[in-house]
C-alpha cells in the first residue's frame, strides 16, 4: 500500500485527479528569482457556485504540507479534506452560499508545477532545476487562476500558517482584489527559529543517500527516511508541550516496561514515527525543500522598505487575524506585529487570540472559538459586501 500510494503521489504531480489549468508560453509566471516559469500549470478544486456578480468567491490558501483538497476526500490518502470541519454545505464557510477555490501552490507536488513535475526541456522531473519559488510567486500564480474565473475581487482570502503568509501577500500585492482577509496562526516573516527548524528538515532530506542530489525520481527512488525525519521534527513544532504531555505523557507503547533498547518504547516515539511514515507516501521530498524555503524567504516588511505598515498603506481590505496561545511556531507576538502595522496603516482590523493547548495545528482542528470568530468576521463582511445570507 505505501508503495502504491507513493506511485500515486508521483502521478499526481503531472496528472492530478483535480481540475488543472495550463498556462502556455504566452502566459509565463514571473518569478522573484528573476526567471520565467513557462509553461506551468495550477491544479485546483472549487466548491459551490460563482454568483452572477462574481462577488462570492473565497480563496483558501493551504499550508506547507496541505493541498487543494480542502473539502473533498484526498485522492492519495482517502482521508477527508484538511479543512472539512470548516468548509462545506451548511458549514461556517457555507459552499451553498460561497464559491470556494483552493489551489495547490506552485512548488507543490499535487498537480501544480513543482520539482516533481516533468521539465518540458528535458522530459525528466525538474528536481532542483526548478527555480526557487517564493510566497509572492505562489500568490502571483493564484491571481492568474482567479483571472481565469473572471473574478475581479475576491470576497475573502483565508489560510493558516504558510497559507496565512499567502493571505498577507495577497492583501499587500493586490489590495483592490481582496475584500476581506483572514490570516490565521501566521506572521509577516519567518523567524530565525523557524528557519532553523526548516534547515534541520532539509538537511535530513539531503542526508538520505536516496535523495541523489535531488534526482531521486530519475533513479526510481524516494528519500523516505530523510523526509520522515524532517516531518517528525517539524511535527513537534506544530504541537505544544502541554498537548504532548496530555496526550502521551511518558506512557509506554504496547509494553509493560522499558526494553533497554532503541525501539519505540514511548507512545510519543511511536506516534512521531507514524507521522513520518504516513507523510512520505503523500509528499515529494524536493517539494518539501522548495516550500520550506519559500516560507524562510518570506519577509513582507523587507519587501516594503523595512516598514510593515507600508505593505498595507491605504488598504481598504478588512482584516481579522487569529493566533493561538500555545503556538510556538507563530506566537501571538507575530500576529500582533501585523496588527500594529495594520493599525498604523489605518486598516480595519480585528484580532483574536484563542486560548488552547493544541499548539500551531489548532487552526486545523475543531476549535469553537476559532469558528465563532471566523463566523462573525465573514458574516459582517458579507453584509458589508451585500451578499445575502
Amino acid at each position, binding site marked *: 500500500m505505501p508503495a502504491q500510494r507513493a506511485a500515486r503521489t508521483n502521478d499526481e504531480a503531472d496528472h492530478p485527479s483535480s481540475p488543472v489549468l495550463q498556462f502556455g508560453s504566452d502566459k509565463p509566471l514571473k518569478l522573484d528569482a528573476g526567471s520565467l516559469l513557462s509553461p506551468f500549470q495550477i491544479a485546483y478544486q472549487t466548491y459551490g457556485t460563482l454568483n452572477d456578480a462574481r462577488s462570492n468567491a473565497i480563496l483558501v490558501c493551504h499550508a506547507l504540507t496541505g493541498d487543494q483538497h480542502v473539502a473533498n476526500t484526498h485522492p492519495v490518502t482517502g482521508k477527508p479534506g484538511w479543512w472539512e470541519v470548516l468548509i462545506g454545505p451548511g458549514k461556517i464557510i457555507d459552499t451553498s452560499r460561497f464559491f470556494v477555490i483552493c489551489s495547490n501552490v506552485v512548488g507543490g507536488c499535487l498537480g501544480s508545477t513543482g520539482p516533481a513535475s516533468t521539465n518540458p526541456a528535458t522530459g525528466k522531473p525538474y528536481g532542483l532545476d526548478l527555480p526557487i519559488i517564493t510566497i509572492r510567486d505562489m500568490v502571483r500564480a493564484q491571481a492568474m487562476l482567479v483571472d481565469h474565473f473572471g473574478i475581479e475581487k475576491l470576497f475573502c482570502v483565508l489560510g493558516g500558517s504558510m497559507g496565512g503568509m499567502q493571505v498577507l501577500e495577497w492583501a499587500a500585492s493586490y489590495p483592490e482584489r481582496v475584500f476581506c482577509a483572514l490570516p490565521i496562526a501566521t506572521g509577516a516573516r519567518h523567524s530565525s527559529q523557524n528557519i532553523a527548524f526548516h534547515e534541520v528538515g532539509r538537511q535530513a532530506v539531503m542526508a538520505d543517500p536516496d535523495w541523489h542530489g535531488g534526482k531521486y525520481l530519475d533513479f526510481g527512488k524516494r528519500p523516505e527516511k530523510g523526509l520522515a525525519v524532517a516531518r517528525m521534527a517539524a511535527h513537534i513544532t506544530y504541537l505544544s508541550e502541554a498537548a504532548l504531555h496530555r496526550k502521551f505523557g511518558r506512557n509506554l507503547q504496547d509494553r509493560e516496561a522499558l526494553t533497554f533498547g532503541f525501539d519505540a518504547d514511548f507512545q510519543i516515539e511511536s506516534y512521531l514515527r507514524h507521522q513520518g511514515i504516513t507523510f512520505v507516501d503523500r509528499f515529494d521530498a524536493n517539494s518539501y525543500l522548495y516550500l520550506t524555503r519559500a516560507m524562510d524567504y518570506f519577509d513582507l516588511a523587507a519587501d516594503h522598505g523595512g516598514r510593515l505598515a507600508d505593505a498595507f498603506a491605504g488598504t481598504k481590505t*478588512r482584516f481579522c487575524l487569529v493566533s493561538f496561545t500555545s503556538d510556538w511556531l507563530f506566537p501571538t507576538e507575530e500576529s500582533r506585529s501585523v*496588527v500594529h502595522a495594520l493599525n*498604523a496603516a489605518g486598516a480595519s482590523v480585528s*484580532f483574536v487570540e484563542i486560548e488552547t493547548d493544541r499548539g500551531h495545528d489548532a487552526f486545523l482542528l475543531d476549535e469553537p472559538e476559532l469558528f*465563532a470568530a471566523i463566523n462573525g468576521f465573514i458574516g459582517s463582511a458579507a453584509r458589508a459586501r451585500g451578499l445575502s445570507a
Partner: protein
Amino acid sequence: MTVNRAQRVDLEVVTDLIPANSRVLDVGSGDGLLLELLQETKQVDGRGLELSQRGVNECVARGLSVIQGDADTDLEFYADKGFDFVVLSQTLQATRNPKVVLDQLLRIGNRAIVSFPNFGHWRVRFSLLIKGRMPVTKDLPYSWYDTPNIHFCTIRDFVNLCEELGATVEKATALDANGQKIGLSMPWWFWNFFGQQAVFLLKR
C-alpha cells in the same frame, strides 16, 4: 468595562455627540455595546481596542472590528488623526497613566470623548467624610482592595488635566444619580458635587 451595562446611561450621551458615518475608535470597548449602538444608529466605521480577550472574542464573533490590546501601551501604534472620534468610556480611571492615555486620544482622534465616574460626587465625599470608609456605590461597586479603578479623579481634576494637555473642552455633560443631565447653567462646583458621571468632548 468596569461598570455594569444597566448603568451605562453615559453611552447615550456619547452616541449623541457623534455624527453619522464618522470613523470611531472605542478604547476599552468591552463586549462591544457602544460600538454596536454606534453602528446601528449612526452607521459609523467603528473599531475597538479591548484588554480582555473574552471581550474581544465576543466582539469579533458579533462582527465588530476589535483587537486585543492595552490602552496604556498600544495606542502609540495608531496613526495621527486616524479617527474622527476616539472614545474612552468609563476606562480612564482604570489606566496606569491617564495623562499619557488622554494625550494619545487627542493625537489619534480629531476629537476625543471621555466619560468617567466623578470622584467629587457628594456620596463619595460623604462616605469618606462621615463614614471614614472608601466609597462603594452603585456606580463604583468595588472594594478598595479589588478595584480595577486605580486613578480616580473629580470633574475639576479632569478639567485641570485637559488644560495641562492643551485640550479644549467643546462640550461637557454631567449626569446625576438618576442619569439625568445637569443643567448647563449650573456652575462647576455644582457639577462636581452632584454629577455622578461626566462626559467630555475634547479637541486639540
